[in-house]
């Protein structure tokens, strides 16, 4: 097992970190790298696809793998092309909550329905951080943000539940407080031949923290206090939400190509 320093050496490009002090983005990058290191994957097989927002910068340019930093909301659609293009690639999508569930919601639903083999990490900080802290689909009801100064009149979107209902093969939720569990879940996602969706509640001390008057550390404390691995509590459930066996898109399409007499090489 590589040491922290070696993990960084191997997986992280030496660019100055774009993240604010205390941001959870770096922790996510670390978890992903560790999970890959533990798995049988070579990092040359990985293509990390991201959209726009703070979360999109987690892999691009920092993760030392092939990266495709795309347009706002479309990462899953780009990733679908990559996966169908070359089945041997391990496709990882890192996307913020606004990117993934807001502007990109339609691709999220259909990526899940297609059960196309990719691992989608939705970095949920509950608002649009990069642009200053506007309300997102994931913001809680009544919460104040930059654009809901009187409180969020709307209700929050339960992305993981929706993705589960849409038919994804593997759905889970963790937080940046649960690094070890998260790493294990990412390993599971890598092994899953299908659409894996992991929502990661991630602290944004700069936007959310400021509104709530919490530091990054306090937010991690909050995740600890307010989550539970037991589904029958009032707390936010963390753990696997669903794991089902169903046809995977790439597999199906490659099979059809062969049956039609073609060679998908």
């Amino acid at each position: 097992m590589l040491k922290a320093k070696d993990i960084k050496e191997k997986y992280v490009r030496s660019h100055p970190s774009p993240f604010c002090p205390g941001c959870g983005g770096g922790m996510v990058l670390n978890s992903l790298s560790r999970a890959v290191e533990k798995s049988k994957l070579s990092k040359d097989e990985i293509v990390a696809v991201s959209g726009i927002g703070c979360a999109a910068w987690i892999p691009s340019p920092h993760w030392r793998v092939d990266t495709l930093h795309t347009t706002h909301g479309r990462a899953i659609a780009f990733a679908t092309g990559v996966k169908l293009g070359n089945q041997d690639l391990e496709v990882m999508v890192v996307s913020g909550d606004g990117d993934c569930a807001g502007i990109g919601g339609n691709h999220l639903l259909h990526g899940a329905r297609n059960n196309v083999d990719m691992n989608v990490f939705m970095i949920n900080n509950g608002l649009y951080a990069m642009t200053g802290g506007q309300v997102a689909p994931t913001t809680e009801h009544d919460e104040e943000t930059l654009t809901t100064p009187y409180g969020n009149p709307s209700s929050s979107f339960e992305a993981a539940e929706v993705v589960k209902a849409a038919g994804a093969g593997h759905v889970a939720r963790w937080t940046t407080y649960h690094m070890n569990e998260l790493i294990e879940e990412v390993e599971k996602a890598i092994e899953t031949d299908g659409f894996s969706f992991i929502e990661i509640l991630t602290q944004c001390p700069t936007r959310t923290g400021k509104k709530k008057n919490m530091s990054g550390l306090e937010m991690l404390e909050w995740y600890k206090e307010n989550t539970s691995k037991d589904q029958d509590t009032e707390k936010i459930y963390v753990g696997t939400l669903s794991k089902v066996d169903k046809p995977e898109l790439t597999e199906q399409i490659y099979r059809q190509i062969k049956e039609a007499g073609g060679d998908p090489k």
Partner: protein
Amino acid sequence: MKEKGEYFMEGNIACAEGALKAGCGFYAGYPITPASEVMNHLSEELPKVGGRFIQMEDELGSMASIVGASWTGLKSMTATSGPGFSLMQENLGYAVMTETPCVVVNVQRAGPSTGQATKPGTGDVMQARFGSQGDYELIALSPNSVQEMFDFTVRAFNLAERYRTPVVLLADAGVGHMREKVKIREDVKTVKRRRPEEGEREFFDTDREDHVPPMPNFGEGEELLVTGSTHLGDGTRDTSSFEAQDNLVRRLVDKIEDNREDIEDWEEHHAEDSDLVVVSYGSMSRPARGAVRKARKEGHNVGFFRPKVIWPSPEKRLKKIGENSKVLLAELSLRGYRMEVERSVPSENLHIFDRLNSLPTVDKIYDNIKEVL
């Protein structure tokens, strides 16, 4: 995929066959009139030659996934019409910025908005060139026959691969939905993107005269940085420096501008020595050419000019023509190509035959020629 021979074929099918012959390996699309036949045909034929076909959830996704697939080394394509083409614009710009070869077919219909879905129009000419944000140039081809739906699709792939850029096949419902004879040859010339040579590590900049950097695939250990943000030669995002923006955007524009000679293509008859030259493109250029032929037979001194590659526009040639003779622009829209022609032809020399909804007969344009003469 059709064997070599002569077929009586619809334009959209000829386009799909052209894609197969060009070596298309990935198609993503979304149903839309009057372009769906391209997709319907490829859904059956592409798998037979090992290509992937997927119907996406929308045109945003279609355009996105063909870019993704292109980076795995596959020649990729989508086809749509006006409303879908509008949705594709952002990711089309992304393909320009990331220098991703791909082909986007727009079988234009009468707009704006939903307009008349089965009726032809060419109101998207400017959008094809300027539809996405920022400064850029791209290549758009304008076919006027079923044969050209085949030939130009092949050329669109070749140009996309040659210049690492999206290429738009700017067809219209007129050529997309008609049937004509098409000759399919065995020896179709195809081009593939330039791959990095040993030690070549810059995939987003080059000193080469053609301004085209080499392109590796995902999965080759290059730790590629592909981004729609302004970037340096190695792909590193640079969201602030003058040099990065100036170097990249200028090169992207020059890549098309400086290779005009290779890219440009047009058809002309007596464009040098006539009293009046009819300028037209797309399906409209057929009756327009017929009208010129008729006028010449009747003894009128009339010429004909048709850009086959409409972007980059043959502006120098147009200017030359406009200096020496009157010009009659015949198009299936009110604003399609007009501003570009106005830019090159002095207003006192320029006459317009514009028409909406459907193609005119040869006689209709002929009558107009006589009026202008």
